[in-house]
């Protein structure tokens, strides 16, 4: 469950103030945020992830007002309740695939369950990469590892920043399917920001910035 009200943001070194429309998502509801480059999509996503602090307004995730948390509380909340997916970089380079997942759980202060990790990798079809280094993975495998990283800790919200823009149609569909499937399985809200028109039909709820 996510709700934002009167969210505004201003970068320190810029005059422009971003004003964002209010968002109301119920249990397991997904949202697609569309918009041109530079309009503040990523900024909104980072506000929701607690990576940026709003100038004004409120953000509540599962009834926790995250705009009011201390830095440390916010780090912790983010680790436990938010899953982030990026366009290109998906995992820590120096760690192997399975180590990345373990590190993800470690930072989220959640217990590591090897069978669950194995299941997840199996499900995402990258079980054979378990002990590979991140740089040995193909683009498609990396994308799936990114998904695994965003859900291994069973977050409340999955935030995806342009997850499909560098993928071909085939992979684009697969990735979106997996994402929605995993969000569903975890009862998590999935919020995707993109300018990729291909995934538009997959969402019922859309927000145009």
């Amino acid at each position, binding site marked *: 469950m996510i709700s934002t009200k009167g969210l505004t943001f201003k970068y320190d070194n810029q005059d422009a103030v971003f004003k964002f429309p209010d968002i109301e998502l119920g249990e397991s509801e997904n949202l697609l945020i569309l918009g041109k480059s530079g309009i503040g999509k*990523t*900024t909104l996503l*980072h506000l929701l*992830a607690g*990576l*940026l602090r709003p100038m004004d307004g409120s953000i509540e995730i599962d009834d926790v007002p995250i705009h009011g948390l201390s*830095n*440390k509380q916010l*780090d*912790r909340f*983010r*680790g*436990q309740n*938010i899953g*982030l997916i*990026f*366009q*290109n*970089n998906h*995992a*820590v*380079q*120096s*760690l192997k695939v399975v*180590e990345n997942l*373990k*590190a*993800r*759980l*470690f*930072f*989220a*202060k959640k217990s*590591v369950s090897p069978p669950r990790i194995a299941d997840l990798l199996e499900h995402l079809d990258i079980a054979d990469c378990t002990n590979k280094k991140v740089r040995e993975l193909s683009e498609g495998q990396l994308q799936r590892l990114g998904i695994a*990283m965003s859900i291994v800790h069973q977050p409340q919200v999955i935030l995806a*920043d342009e997850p499909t823009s560098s993928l071909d149609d085939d992979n684009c569909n697969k990735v979106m399917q997996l994402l929605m499937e995993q969000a569903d399985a975890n009862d998590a809200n999935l919020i995707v920001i993109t300018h990729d028109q291909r995934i538009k039909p997959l969402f019922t709820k859309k927000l145009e910035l």
Partner: protein
Amino acid sequence: MNIWKISIKNFKYKPLYSFLGILMLSVSIALLMGIQQLDKSFRQQLENNLGDIDMVVGAKGSPLQLVLASVLHIDNPTGNILFEEAKSILKNPMIGKGVPISYGDNYKGYRIVGTTQDFPELYNAQLKEGRFVQQSMEVALGSTVAETLGLQIGDSFQSSHGLAEKGGHDHDEPLTVVGIYKPTHKVMDRLIVTGLETVWDVHQHEEDHGTDNEHEEDGEHDEETDHVGHDETESHHEGEGEHHHEEESQQEITSMLVSFRNPMALLTVPRTINENTNMQAALPKFELERLYQFTGIGVKTITWIAYAILIISAITIFISLYRMVRDRAFDLALMRSYGANTFQLIKMVAYEGFVIAGIAFVFGVLISQIGVFFIFEMITDQYKQTMPLQLGFQELSQTAGLVVLMVLLSIALAIYPIVTMNISKILSHEK
């Protein structure tokens, strides 16, 4: 999974940089430790060797040489002095004990020192077996001599002329071992102690025996050790003529080891001797201080080189950590997005620095110990000196403290980007 594991993975992720950091740091640690240890052992060994000797009186010449020759037994003596004259200085009430020594021969590189019963007492040496030397041609062995040469009570051997192992000719009269001393860890251990008479007799005999030979050789013989030995026989010869038995008043010794009864003697006695007699008096402690001033330059130079390398290694570690923080900023931002807080990331970098420092410290100490061990082996081999191989806790902790300080400094500088990290900015500029 924990911070330590992640740090070690980071460390392994860039093996070349890590290796470079470790290499430089361990070299500087090895140099620092090694030179400190050598210097300390060297001083300790020399000072230890002094025993109760406060002053040494010998022929005029270099006082340092006199100390090195007659106290530490690593140099050749300055010449001989008359026993009678040397004894006269003992009349001074401030002087406690005077032990005459006379030497010029060796057996397999170990010096044969003709002296009195008082000599072992200077080093608190006690007999392990056998008895004290009582007659001419009897010897008692220091523990190292007995051990290395495998000599037993009752064994006899022929001494060689001169102080070096090779180059002298053998004397005919065999010396018989009558006693073996317990280890003193002082210079005494590597000496063969005998009576003054033995030295006199051997050379007197030699004199009678091969007068012609010796004289012919004299002109062109440049072997220094041999020459020193010659001096002794030579002066005997000149003093005695063809007399078989020397008169007491003309007997010579190499030097007189003196211990003071009153420390005030330090101020007056050496000056009196130097000004009023044909002999010179040298204070071993004072001469050693002078010696340290020479060796100290080398020690200081190496220490400064070690400090320079330490600073360079700290810079290398800093660059290694800083590169990690800068080049892999995205990875660090990712970890922040996973819920890691700033402190955890700082710990991650710090642990990596500590891993480098820790490994380098172990290697550094190891290298220094191996190095020092071989240097000591060499010294033992060449100078028949055994130095205690000891690793001082103080040096260890001092060096460790310095290394920790440098590493902490590099860490502190390297983590700055983490503290000021803007996660959002890094993550949104991922392309």
